[in-house]
């Protein structure tokens, strides 16, 4: 893929890229260069700014400051077309493939070879002939006419790469490409990366799997709080060195100490196996009055665990005890009847009815208690809704306001209000403050503590390091579907959490 005239200098140069949102600095003067035929690893904790940086490179987000130079041309900001035309291609974590079409159709989608004529019929032979060399180059074991539905995850990753190559990509950006691959599939992918490097293609490799990063990249750049905090090259690329750079944030103290010591076990999960990680067994015990943080990297299987406990998903095995009693939970209804509630991660899809009013949302899980016989008593449900609105300080004009018109923080408070008007024993919060402003965040932390002080057991899933360290009394860390370790408060540190989250033991 060598071109006749190669401009001098690295393929990609970012200079002082910043991106601020109201109240948030996502990127703060990031400079990064990638040479031709170089593989650069990009690592950082959840929320370090990796995704925003990638969006800048894809032309989706316009930086507020800085300049970009791609292949010798300067841009103040890339547009989506600039990115495509200058040969920047993405292989996303969630694959963007049409699984009802075959491999060749996916690679050349929108650019299909046509027979001449007004009908614009697709020339399938030419389509397959055009794709075959690309597949040969990657050494894949499927054919152009294999349906995508029949491909494994690894094969789909390779298909995405073939698509990138068909666009004459000069820089391929891979976001967690190995997160769902087996060891042999990963090895195969890494070989392909090396071949691409030999052809002069540059690669940015984003991964949490530090051992893989170590084995395939030429250089590692570490992001923290939207800044480049260090780079490693050659022999210095070691997991412990990478972790040392990733941590070290100034964490605000959010901790509100409990008023009462934790009591007897409220929730005991034993040998749980979820459909996402069928080979892993998870056990944990949650006591009354404590906030147990469940930390880990995105995709570690925490939400799956919560959904299996709450009865949303089927579990493959294991037992669940609430307040010492073994309970059979087949659907959320069973969990709710036992006082086990879930504040789900995706509140717009699972937590709320966006065009229901505050009242209708709040009364929904225990509507029967507001009913006289089969009929709802509007006065009863409005009374509770009004009480919850004041208790949680929900900023809405009145309780007839539709939930969808409110801000994220107020919507989350409505989800909480649904459960707080009942009698919780255990509440699982899944990413309780995602997309919520700072003020509402601290209100929610205070609320969790109040619940715990009143004898409720709180399980908080959080990918936010500051939050999980700051709010929890005790912490469990998950990694690839298993619990890799428990931490007591005196062991809380970014270093320890990250060690466990990437699957290393504490030293």
């Amino acid at each position, binding site marked *: 893929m060598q071109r006749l005239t190669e401009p001098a200098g690295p393929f990609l140069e970012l200079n002082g890229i910043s991106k601020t949102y109201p109240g948030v600095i996502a990127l703060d003067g990031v400079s990064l260069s990638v040479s031709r035929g170089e593989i650069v690893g990009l690592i950082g904790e959840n929320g370090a700014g990796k995704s925003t940086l990638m969006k800048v490179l894809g032309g989706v987000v316009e930086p507020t400051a800085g300049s970009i130079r791609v292949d010798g041309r300067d841009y103040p900001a890339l547009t989506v077309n600039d990115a495509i035309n200058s040969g920047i291609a993405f292989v996303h974590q969630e694959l963007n493939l049409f699984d009802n079409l075959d491999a060749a159709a996916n690679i050349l989608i929108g650019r299909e070879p046509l027979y001449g004529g007004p009908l614009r019929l697709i020339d399938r032979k030419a389509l397959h002939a055009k794709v075959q060399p690309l597949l040969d180059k990657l050494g894949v074991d499927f054919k152009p006419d294999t349906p995508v539905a029949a491909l494994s995850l690894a094969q789909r990753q390779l298909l995405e790469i073939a698509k990138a190559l068909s666009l004459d990509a000069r820089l391929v950006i891979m976001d967690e490409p190995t997160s769902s691959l087996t060891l042999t599939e990963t090895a195969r992918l890494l070989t392909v990366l090396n071949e691409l490097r030999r052809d002069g293609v540059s690669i940015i490799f984003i991964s949490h799997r530090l051992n893989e990063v170590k084995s395939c990249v030429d250089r590692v750049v570490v992001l923290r709080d939207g800044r480049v905090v260090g780079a490693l090259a050659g022999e210095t690329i070691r997991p412990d060195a990478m972790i040392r750079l990733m941590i070290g944030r100034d964490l605000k103290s959010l901790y509100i100490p409990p008023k009462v010591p934790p009591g007897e076990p409220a929730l005991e999960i034993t040998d749980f196996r979820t459909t996402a990680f069928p080979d892993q067994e998870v056990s944990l015990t949650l006591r009354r009055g404590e906030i147990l943080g469940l930390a880990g990297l995105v995709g570690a299987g925490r939400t799956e665990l919560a959904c299996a406990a709450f009865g*949303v998903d089927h579990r493959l095995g294991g037992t669940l005890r609430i307040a010492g009693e073994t309970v059979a939970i087949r659907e959320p*209804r069973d969990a709710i009847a036992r006082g086990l509630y879930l504040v789900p991660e995706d509140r717009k899809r699972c937590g709320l009815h966006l065009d229901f009013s505050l009242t209708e949302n709040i009364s929904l899980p225990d509507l029967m208690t507001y009913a006289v016989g*089969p*009929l709802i008593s509007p006065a009863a449900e409005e009374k509770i809704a009004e009480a919850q609105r004041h208790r949680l300080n929900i900023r809405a004009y009145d309780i007839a306001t539709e939930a969808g018109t409110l801000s994220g923080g107020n919507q989350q408070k409505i989800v909480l209000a649904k459960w707080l008007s009942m009698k919780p024993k255990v509440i699982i919060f899944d990413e309780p403050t995602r997309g919520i402003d700072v003020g509402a965040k601290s209100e929610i932390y205070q609320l969790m503590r109040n619940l715990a002080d009143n004898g409720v057991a709180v399980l908080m899933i959080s990918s936010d390091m500051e939050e999980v360290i700051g709010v929890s009394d005790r912490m469990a860390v998950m990694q690839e579907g298993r619990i890799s370790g428990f931490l007591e408060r005196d062991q809380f540190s970014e270093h320890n959490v990250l060690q466990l989250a990437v699957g290393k033991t504490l030293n």
Partner: protein
Amino acid sequence: MLKKDLGLFLLILVVGAVVAFLNPRFLSPLNLANTANLIGLFGLFSLGEGFVIITGGIDLSVGSIFALLGVIFINLLVAYSLPWPIAVLIIVIAGILLGAIHGFLVTKVRMQPFVVTLCGLLVYRGIARWYTEDGTAGFEFGQKFPALEWLTTGRSFATDTFTGIPNSFMAFVVVAFIMGVVLHRSVFGRYLFAVGKNEEAARYSGIRSNAIIAAAYVISGGLAGISAIYLAMYTRSISPASHGNFYELYAIAAAVLGGCSLRGGEGSVMGIVLGAILLQVLQNLVNLLGIPSSLNFAVMGGVILIGVIADMQLVRYRAYKANEKKRAGIVPLPAAAPGKN
């Protein structure tokens, strides 16, 4: 009454006034009684259809249910000489069972409602035709069921000068009232909207969404069973190849006109009632204004099309207005809300 229903009500008044102006016979007691009778007959099963549509489903089978249950009903009375209350009970239970089968296939087998009830449409009519050997099922000469006839085709409050109110219409009003309470006041009704709007969130709130959806099909089937009796008594003879043809489309049209969204989660009993009334007024309009009756469906289709487009524009306009209000900062914070101090 919701704003949406009010618009529909005004539309009915306007159409009625225009027809009455062009042909005064529209307001004659006999014509009004006939129209009311038809509103009752078509309105009954439209209510059930509306419930199914609110869950995000559809029931295409009702027209064929009328043919199948209708011929069975007549046969029970004629060939088996069953007492009519028992025959009525059997038919209503049969309707409920058919609805239960639809509900099972939709929720447990996870088939699409359109496919399930399309198969019902084909199967029931086929069986009805086979059952009568494609002949016409009718009562024997001179066979009379005074009480049943009074309930279905009779009239109440008739005087020398007043033709009376058709009992089919009265039955419709009673059923509509009950369904209105169920949909808008009961726990089940709230669940129905919750499941239709966002089944996932409903499940997370502990609602058995499958049971709720299946219940809607059962209600639709049960009302179709009652309607089958009313229609059989109205026509008194049933040729299963054509009896009830396209009636499911009248029901869907009434529900959609009445503000039910085919995406689920929206609709009101008042809307469905008004939708059913408007459809029959339009039918009547075609007859009274000398429009070729072959244009019947075209008129209905045209009015629904225009009605839905107008409604969408209205919704958009209201959303725009609401947005403007918000930008003007009229929405206060709870601290300023009354009752806090």
